[in-house]
């Protein structure tokens, strides 16, 4: 019998597949479907500080618009008893999920200011979340902010959160650090429990007809897996933090590769959004089959077996431009290309 169990952020998990933050986890019905399909834990959709502020501001604006300006109509919309504008809806979902499903619930918090991160993380912990994933989502466009200062701001926020809550904390990272290993080392000094590689940023695109910026959600493909694979391979064994790989996991092969480079869990969203949550069941079956065929007994046995510490040619992980790869490129035939 193959042992698929793993551990992540101190949580014992039945297998390494964890759905990452996505609209799939917005309600209890879908959370149950994820559990039934075999997900070992689930990261809830992200609670965005900006969204909470925006909802609140917009509500205030529309309720106030035009009021007290015309004697016949002092307001234009009825004021309700209460509004669900704060994090309450999110906290209720955690509360409900903890009662109705049995896999660990990892909450996800996306914010930018010290005060609110701390406030919300306390409420999330109190609502019963098993762990918290902090999502650092920031494009530093200010030329006066050095990379050191920007990193310090992250660390200050993380330290403040860690001081306030006792549940395990992971940090979802951007791949764009000049020295990622050093930043990970700094995270470990703040007692962070795990890292998620990586955040996928929504990129601004341009609509040529309208000459406008558009934001689109691009689903990942297995090709996106290569970036986190490399970094997990480099970081495994160098840090006490658990590793989750979270870009480009679509198949059982992707899960296997993630484990081989040292990940504790493989997170997926695009595959489930496009092909349905039942893909988890299929991938788990294929994973187990592959492991049996290749005589692996357990996930823990294979974890990290292809990280930088365990492969015979570790320099392959470290070279950014590898001459032999470039040399070996053969373009497809084209009359205009003198190959």
């Amino acid at each position, binding site marked *: 019998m193959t042992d698929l169990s793993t551990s992540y952020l101190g949580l014992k998990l039945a297998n390494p597949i964890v759905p990452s933050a996505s609209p799939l986890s917005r309600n209890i019905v879908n959370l149950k479907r994820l559990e039934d399909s075999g997900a070992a834990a689930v990261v809830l959709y992200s609670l965005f500080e900006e969204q*909470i*502020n925006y*909802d*609140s*501001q*917009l*509500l*205030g*604006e*529309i*309720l*106030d*618009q*035009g009021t*007290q300006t015309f004697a*016949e*109509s*002092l*307001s*234009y*919309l*009825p004021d*309700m*008893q*209460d*509004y*669900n*504008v*704060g994090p309450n*809806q999110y906290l209720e979902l955690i509360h409900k999920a903890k009662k109705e499903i049995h896999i660990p619930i990892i909450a996800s918090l996306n914010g930018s200011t010290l005060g609110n991160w701390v406030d919300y993380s306390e409420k999330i912990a109190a609502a019963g979340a098993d762990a918290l994933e902090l999502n650092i989502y920031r494009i530093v466009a200010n030329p006066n902010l050095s990379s050191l200062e920007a990193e310090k701001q992250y660390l200050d926020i993380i330290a403040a959160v860690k001081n306030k809550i006792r549940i395990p904390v992971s940090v979802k990272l951007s791949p764009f650090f000049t020295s990622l290993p050093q930043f990970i080392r700094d995270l470990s000094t703040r007692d962070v429990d795990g890292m998620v590689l990586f955040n996928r940023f929504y990129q601004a695109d341009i609509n040529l007809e309208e*000459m*406008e910026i558009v934001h689109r959600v691009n689903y990942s493909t297995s090709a996106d897996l290569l970036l986190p694979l490399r970094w997990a391979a480099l970081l495994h064994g160098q840090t006490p933090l658990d590793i989750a790989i979270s870009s480009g996991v679509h198949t059982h092969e992707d899960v296997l590769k993630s484990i081989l480079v040292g990940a504790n869990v493989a997170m997926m969203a695009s595959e489930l959004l496009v092909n349905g949550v039942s893909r988890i069941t299929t991938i788990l079956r294929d994973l187990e089959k592959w492991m049996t065929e290749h005589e692996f007994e357990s996930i823990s046995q294979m974890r990290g077996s292809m990280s930088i510490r365990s492969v015979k040619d570790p320099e392959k992980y470290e070279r950014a431009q590898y001459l032999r790869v470039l040399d070996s490129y053969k373009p497809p035939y084209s009359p205009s290309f003198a190959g």
Partner: protein
Amino acid sequence: MLASATEGAIVLLNSPYSPEEVWDQLPLHFQQIVHKKKLKLFVVDAYAVAKETGMGGRMNTILQTCFFAISKVLPADTAIAAIKKAIKKTYGKRGEAVVQKNIAAVDASLARLKEVQIPDRTNGKPAPALISDAAPEFVRTTLRQIIAEEGDLLPVSALPADGTFPSATSQWEKRGLALQVPVWDPEVCIQCGKCVMVCPHATIRSKIIPKDAVANAPEGFLTTKAKWKEIPDSLFTIQVAVEDCTGCTLCVEVCPAKNRSQTNRKAINMEEMPPIREQGRKYWDFFLDAPDLPESQHLPLNLVRNIQTRRPLFEFSGACAGCGETPYVKLVSQIYGDRALIANATGCSSIYGGNLPTTPWAKNADGRGPAWSNSLFEDNAEFGFGMRITLNQHIVHATRLLKVMQEQLGVDLIAGILAADQSNDHGIAAQRTRIVQLKEKLQKINTPQAKDLFSIADNLVKKSVWIMGGDGWAYDIGYGGLDHVLAQGLNVNILVLDTQVYSNTGGQSSKATPLGAVAKFAASGKRTGRKDIGLMAISYGNIYVAQVAMGADDAHTLRAFQEAEAYEGPSLIIAYSHCIAHGIIMEHGLKHQKMAVQSGAWPLYRYNPALKDQGKNPFTLDSKAPTIPLKEYMQEEGRFRILAQGNPEASRMLTERAQAENEQKLHLFQRMAASATAVEAAAQPTI
């Protein structure tokens, strides 16, 4: 303003000028009273406070704070603490961000509130005249006093004995409301006319001017070559009445032309108003006086850009900034204005259409304009119907008199009048000329018959009867009469300015309110769907019916208005009008109209019974199949959003029902459009 101030009173001024600068900006009269009554003067830039604390245009928290800080009706600290407590209580349920914003506004108000050290000098300029000397006497006297808020001092004898107020008076009330106004960039402009079409207050206008007419234009008056093949040597201009503009920005929103080097700029851009006020006034006066193209070069009225070069006869009303109704009203005035008879139901349109002191219904260069009157909520359709019957009776009577007097008046002239083709502008202009000749002749004949005919002769020029009002009138309170008038088969045009809610009285639910929308009397979300007044009218088979949304398709709107008027029978136009009561940011009103159509919430269609005579299907579905889910449109509007925030379960249930019912309705319309027997299709109880 300062008349009631006692000696030593405290005056709080909201001004963009600093305490050091403000004195020199005050009018002389104001300075003199401050000196004489030894007033204390405080100044705060509430606009700046509102901007920096995210309060938008909302001043009440700011000015209230300043009032308590300086009035000493309570110890200032106690008062400020009480204000902050009230903010938490009032806004707490709207979220922490709203509370913090208001508290920040209180603190920023106190920081910016400064006492002005009153100088000894009195160097102010005379205050600008409230009313221009060029205004008619009635405006300079009676209306001026009302505008100065001294109406109570008017003797009864100053008011018109029969209650008929002169029209075209809103042009004299220069409110100077907007801090920013649109400025035209001719280099970028594609001359589409959309900005002019959507302007709720007729403050941005276009004109085609003969080339030689700009020789004496004030310096800086912008024109560019008119992009019309028919008139190769003319100039095109867009001008803004900077003192009448409300700064709503709809014109900028709708402008499709982007600056190729800087995409955040368009052919219309908002700029600070005070620095361009004086020159803007000169440009506007020149623009109004500049000649139109000669009649021989008049452009056909089938295109938005053409019709929008026509002078609107509905201008500078008191409607909300960004109003979704008034562009439709203005369009009627542009197409039929000088021969329109308008019966206006009570509601927003009667308030902005005919409220004292001034009247937005205006006159053209010949001194002609629409005749307008307001009746009650419950009888407006009948009121307009009465106008039609009266008109018909006058025509019958005048025709009889013409025939009796034809030897005296000239057989050819009378034959011309009776056989006139008035189906287009040229025909109507020719008839007007004949009526002028007729009246000249009649004045020379001193008989009771001649006097009788003289008094009704103008009715022989084709009139256009418009019965208009909101959905509260058309769907609810005036519906019985509206239905009855539709059923009579006479030639009237009914325009429903459909905001889907009683707007003027503050957002009460009407039978036009859609399923799931929150309104007063439907605070838990409306549980029944919108009454389909269009389908009900279609079921008669002989009524022209169109459902339009200018923000989604302005050409469709124009076409529907023209077809409705051309149809020799009753017509009903249901016009989607975005509204402050929808809980939307008004500058995006046109986007909301577009989304209503894109989601299928508001399909565009025309039912033209005249097509049946040509063997065609009278029903045309003019909007495409939905391209966005209904939910997406609903999420964008506060009236649906607050239900999702206040009662998510109810919101989910009602949204699902709304989507299902919407799809059913769309299927019906699609079947009707595909069917040759549309009337029967509409009559089927499929909904």
